[in-house]
Structure formats: structure tokens, C-alpha cells
């Protein structure tokens, strides 16, 4: 009955198609090349007083200016961290602990956030809430943005210390209406505004996140590995007058705010990636526009396919959709068998499939949320890859 026939194993020569840029991006070749250049000469501790240290210090400070330019900041406003998660932790905890030192009671501190935040924000807020901080959450609309009316209502009832929100949603790609939000926030100058710009940089115009153009922004978090830079490095922008309690105490690096010997390789890589993004941002990339149009056209033809998040107000580089009665994990596994990498939910945690809290907050049912698949592409993606993706999707849906 059951015979064991010689079968082909996975064809190793098939190039994988990577459609999970929102989770992480390939290292730009120019960034990868950097490590070789300085290995033998720039190894000293940048805080050392001797010339060897000085050389490294100068490189770091030059790099800082490049990263600052990415968001229209000056280098004295930029602190390097281990990534956006640390930046977000630093912004939220740093601010709240600073308030706590003044007010003495966590219960007297409140924050506002949204229902669509990344787990770095969500879990940090939950931690602060467990300490006693009062938290109000702005719900999402079915389009995927925060409900501005509700935000207005919340602001009328009390004045929190902090309002933190994500600019581009990592799951749906939807862009929060930052202009209107900041205009509203200008009526409440005492509230500190923190923006998670992790997915925004490069994917949408800097006019939305540049701190010179948007002076109402008090603190901003960005990440290197979302813009073809190395993993393990990110940055925090903050206005000089914003007081933050450090997360890391020690050698007083980063203006006494973030101790620890600087991640030199990471910083240089990040700076290079920043320069490349300034020169050639994804949102201006004609090839990516072509891919976007192609994908939207083709996906709209598929029966039973629904987009999550209003495509009109989303970055074209992150697409979230579900197919009626098809489990997202099942699609992911079948794509994976075909060497196409896509995502369901967020990349974090143990790799299990829970219905997305973002989609639930948008009013989607558990079943819809379970069906959701996210694809995201970028600088090194090709139209041919997009075509293979579509043909594979069609084949999976037939079979």
C-alpha cells in the first residue's frame, strides 16, 4: 500500500524570494563592505584619551551626523541605542521614571497610547501600568489609524505626561495622520510626544517625521535594520529639554544617558545605511512603485481576498491581506515550501500564531485576524519576484 519512492528534496538552487522586509532588511552591500575597511585601524575604545581612541571617537561623531540628517535633527539630539526596542523602552521608561522622581507616586502619572502599537511599546506600557501608571488607549478605526475623535476626548478629560504612538503600523503599513495629531497636540504643550518611526524612515516622505518640519515631536525612535543597516543598533532623538532617566548606568557615554561602550560597527553601518537612504529612499524608488502597482492590481483580482488597513493611507511597501477561510499560517507554510518568505503577525516572540491585536483593534474577527498574511518588499526586490509571488499564490489557492 505505502511505498517509499525516491523523492526530490528541496531544490537548493532555487533563490529564495524575500517578502518580509518589514521584519528585517538585507544588509546593503555598501554597509557590508565597511567592516573590512577599518578592522585593523579603528579598534580602540572611543572614550580613551589617547589618539587611537580619538580616531574612533571622531568616526562615531561623524556617523552621528549622518543618522541625525535622516530625520532632520542635529547630532547633539541623537543617542545611539541597541535598536528601536531599546529606544522605545528608553523613551517611555526614561520619561516616566523622571516624572516619578518628581511626583513620588506612579499613580499620579498617566500616559496615552494607541491600540495599534508594536509589542515594544505595548509591553513597556504594560510594565509601567503594573507599577501604577494610568494608561489610556486610543482605539483604532477600521481603516487602521487611531481614532482622532477619541484622542480628542481623552485629552479633554486629563493631561497625561506622555503620548506615544506608532507612525507607520508594522503590521498593516497604515500611516497615522501625523499632521492632524501634532496640530492637536500643539494645544497641549506640556504633554511629551513620542513617535515610533521604526517603519516610517525611508518608506514615507521625511516631511512626516522630520523633526525640523515637525517641531512638536519631543522624542522619536528609529531602527537601523529596517533600512538595510546592521541589526543591533538604533537611535533615539530627543529634544535637549526632555529629561529622561537612563536605562543603562555606567561609564556615562551618550551624554551620560546611555552608558556602555558604543557599538562602533553598528554605528558606522547605521550611518552608511542612513546616507544611502537619504540618497535613494524607497518611497521615491520607481521600481518599487512599479512593484506596488502590479501587486495591488493582481491581488485585487483574487476572489475572497481582503486587505487589512486602508491602502490609500498606507505605505505601499507593507501589504496585509487575508483570503476568506484560509488560515494565514497555512499560506505561510506553503509559501515557505516554495522558498517565498512572508509573514503573519509580528516577527517577535516564540514564532507561534496568535490573532493580531492590531487587526482585532481594527474590529476584525478572530477568523479574519487568523487569515492575515503580511508581505513587505524593498530596495532589492524585483518585479519578477512579485510575479512569482502572485503565480505561487494562485497555485496555492487552487491546490
Amino acid at each position, binding site marked *: *500500500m*505505502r511505498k*517509499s*519512492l*525516491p*523523492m*526530490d*528534496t*528541496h*531544490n537548493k538552487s*532555487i533563490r529564495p524570494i524575500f517578502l518580509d522586509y518589514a521584519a528585517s532588511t538585507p544588509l546593503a552591500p555598501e554597509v557590508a563592505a565597511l567592516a573590512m575597511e577599518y578592522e585593523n585601524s579603528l579598534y580602540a575604545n572611543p572614550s580613551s584619551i589617547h589618539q587611537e581612541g580619538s580616531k574612533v571617537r571622531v568616526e562615531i561623531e561623524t556617523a552621528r551626523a549622518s543618522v541625525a540628517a535622516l530625520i532632520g535633527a542635529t547630532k547633539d539630539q541623537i543617542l545611539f541605542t541597541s535598536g528601536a526596542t531599546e529606544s522605545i523602552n528608553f523613551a517611555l521608561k526614561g520619561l516616566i521614571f523622571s516624572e516619578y522622581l518628581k511626583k513620588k507616586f506612579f499613580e499620579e502619572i498617566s500616559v496615552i497610547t494607541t491600540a495599534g502599537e508594536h509589542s515594544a511599546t505595548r509591553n513597556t506600557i504594560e510594565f509601567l501600568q503594573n507599577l501604577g501608571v494610568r494608561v489610556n488607549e486610543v482605539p483604532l478605526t477600521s481603516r487602521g489609524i487611531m481614532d482622532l475623535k477619541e484622542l480628542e476626548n481623552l485629552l479633554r478629560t486629563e493631561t497625561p505626561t506622555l503620548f506615544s504612538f506608532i507612525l507607520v503600523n508594522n503590521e498593516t503599513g497604515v500611516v497615522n495622520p501625523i499632521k492632524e495629531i501634532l496640530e492637536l497636540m500643539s494645544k497641549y504643550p506640556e504633554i511629551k510626544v513620542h513617535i515610533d518611526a521604526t517603519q516610517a524612515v525611508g518608506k514615507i516622505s521625511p516631511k512626516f517625521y522630520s523633526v525640523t518640519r515637525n517641531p512638536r515631536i519631543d522624542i522619536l525612535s528609529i531602527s537601523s535594520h529596517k533600512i538595510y543597516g546592521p541589526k543591533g543598533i538604533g537611535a533615539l532623538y530627543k529634544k535637549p529639554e526632555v529629561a529622561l532617566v537612563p536605562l543603562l548606568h555606567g561609564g556615562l557615554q551618550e551624554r551620560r544617558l546611555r552608558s556602555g561602550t558604543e557599538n562602533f560597527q553598528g554605528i558606522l553601518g547605521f550611518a552608511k545605511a542612513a546616507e544611502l537612504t537619504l540618497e535613494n529612499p524607497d518611497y521615491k524608488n520607481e521600481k518599487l512603485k512599479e512593484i506596488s502597482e502590479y501587486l495591488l492590481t493582481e491581488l485585487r483580482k483574487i476572489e475572497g481576498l481582503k486587505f487589512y488597513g486602508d491602502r490609500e493611507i498606507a505605505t505601499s511597501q507593507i501589504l496585509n491581506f487575508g483570503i476568506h477561510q484560509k*488560515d494565514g*499560517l*497555512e499560506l505561510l*507554510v*506553503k509559501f*515557505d*515550501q*516554495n*522558498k*517565498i518568505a512572508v509573514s503573519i503577525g509580528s516577527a517577535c516572540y*516564540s*514564532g*507561534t*500564531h*496568535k490573532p493580531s491585536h492590531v487587526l482585532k483593534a481594527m474590529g476584525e474577527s478572530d477568523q479574519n485576524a487568523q487569515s492575515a498574511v503580511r508581505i513587505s518588499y524593498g530596495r532589492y526586490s524585483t518585479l519578477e519576484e512579485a510575479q*512569482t509571488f502572485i503565480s*505561487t499564490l494562485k*497555485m496555492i489557492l487552487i*491546490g
Partner: protein
Amino acid sequence: MEHYPRGKTVVVAMSGGVDSSVAAALLKEQGYNVIGISYQVQETVAPAARAKGCCSLDDFLDARVVANKLDIPYYVISVAPEFKKEVIDYFTEEYLAGNTPNPCVKCNEKIKFELFLNKAMELGGDYVATGHYCSVNFNEETQAYELIKGLDEFKDQTYFLFTLNQDQLSKVLFPLGGLTKKEVRDLAFERGLINHNKRDSQEICFIENSYREFIEGQISFKDIPSGEIRDLQENVLGKHKGLYQFTIGQRKGIPIESLEPIYVVRKDSLKNVLYVGNNKDLMRDTLIAKEVHWINPKENYFGKNLMVKIRSRFQDKIATLTETPSDSNSVQIKFTEPLRAITPGQAVVFYDGPKVVGGGWIKSC
């Protein structure tokens, strides 16, 4: 260029232990298209590998590393809600009803070879495979699948698999049936699998501490009424604080002073009475099994001498099965010699030589 893999796809249930890892390796070498999947049974996975239990994040990582080494895809899925209902709640309810449950059999019945098997089929699997020490045979004469004990008698796990039906058996592969544990570890070592030396998980996978603490954690203390301890002549000897704390044959922990050794002989959950007696009182030669399942429903084993196992670690004993007129799903089992501590709630499995005939759940004796 066609990407979609042709050929037979097997989903291997991987725990991170050496058995399921070697199973995956062997199937890959035999030419199957292998996918490794771990399933998590609780909402929050324990981060570190524990001395007891299995399937912590560390265990999943072991599975992932092995999968990577074997160049097979690996995923983790959750079966937590169903596991809670079918295994954990069953476990607690059985104890509260005065029985001693066997959650591993239940998990195989409801989760591993049903829910997980169905999910594996949905994800593109043609078969499911595990690292169980047993084999499946297709008998051309009877045109039916057979479940056969593993070569390694000590490691044989057919006791836990008696609920498998013909349909499930047609979809399952057990690559380790013809191997001993030592051979399996050697195969793992040869292939450079990191878990070749890993301890076997022996205890119940979802219990971190003791089963008593677990039960107490599942219900509130005030739900457990204390009751009487009596001898078989109905003399009241003392009080107990919950029947769930005792199992048949238990000697330790009975709060009664006695010159001779006394053992738990019976639990009456209706009266909430714990019956104790001496060793002789524990010997029985008959039991009733309920919810009996036959591997091949077409075969009739009544009246024949079979080997019967009443506990996973106990030796098989000779017995004959007879029908119970009142209930077609029950069977009466009579042993040629009395057995000690037959425990209601446990699984009882019947063998014809190395072949599993079927099994059921011990109702009473």
C-alpha cells in the same frame, strides 16, 4: 521554474527530544519531503527546559537547530485551547471523580493523532510521523493496518497509542519501531544532532511541580471536601483531605496509625470515602474496561488468551476478554492470576503477541 515540491510530504511532530529528531532525520534520508512541527500545549511556554516535562522554548530551540541541520522547515503551532479542554480538564476531572487519569493517552487520542494530524494535512502533509517506539504494518490478508510493539520492549509506547483507528494508522509513520533507544542515540550522534544525549522527558508534560499542586492550582481549595477513611468492613479509621491525593496501591501519606502496612484499596467518589486495606486486598483478577476501541474492528478476540497491560510500567499479564451484555462498548477482562493495584481511570491495552488488539479505560474491578 516550478517551485512546488512533488512527492510525499511528512510532517514530523518534533518535541526537541532525540527520538523525534532521529525520526525526522531517517525520513529525510528515506527520501520524504519532511516538515518539522512542534506544537505548544499551553498559552505561555516555559522559557527554560525543565527537569520534568518537555516542550519549553529551549526544547523548541533544540528542535529548530536539528531542523536546520537536517535542512527541513520547522514551525511551531499552538493547540493550547484544545489541549486545555481535552487533556488538562480531563486530567483534573478524573482525579476529582476518584480515578487516576492517563493524560498521555488522551493527548495522543485527541491532540496528536487527531487535531495535530488534521492540521498537518491542511499544511500539505500526506503523513504525520512521530518518534514513538512502535511500528505500523499493513496486513495484506486482513487488508487492515496493524499497530506493532517496538523492538525495544522497555521503550515500547504502544500502550499510549491504543486509540489509533484504521484511518489514522494509514496516515502515520513510525520510523523508530525497529530500533532500540541506544541505536537511536547512536544515529543521532552520527548525524551530529545536538540532542543526542538529551534526557528523556519522563513526566507529564504540562505539570511543572507535583500533580497534587497542579490539581490544587486548577480548582480552589474549598472545592475539595475532606472525607472519611474506612477499612473494607466500613469501619471509620480517620479522615482524608481529598481523594485526589491518593492512588490505588499507595502506601505513603495515609494519615492512619497502623502496625501493619496499609494501602489505598479503593476510592469512592460518591461517598468521598477512601478505603484502605492490606496487600491481599489489592489483588484482583477481574476488571471492566469501558470505551473499548479495537484496532481492527473486524477481528474478534473474545475468549482468546491475550496479554494485557494495565499500567504503562507494568508487565503484560495473560487474560481473556468477554463481552459485557449490558454495554457493547465495555469488556470484561479476567486474568489467569490476580494483579496488584488495578486502578480505575488508567488505560488497559490488549495484545496478541506484539500486535495491539485494542484497549479501553479501566472502569472498576
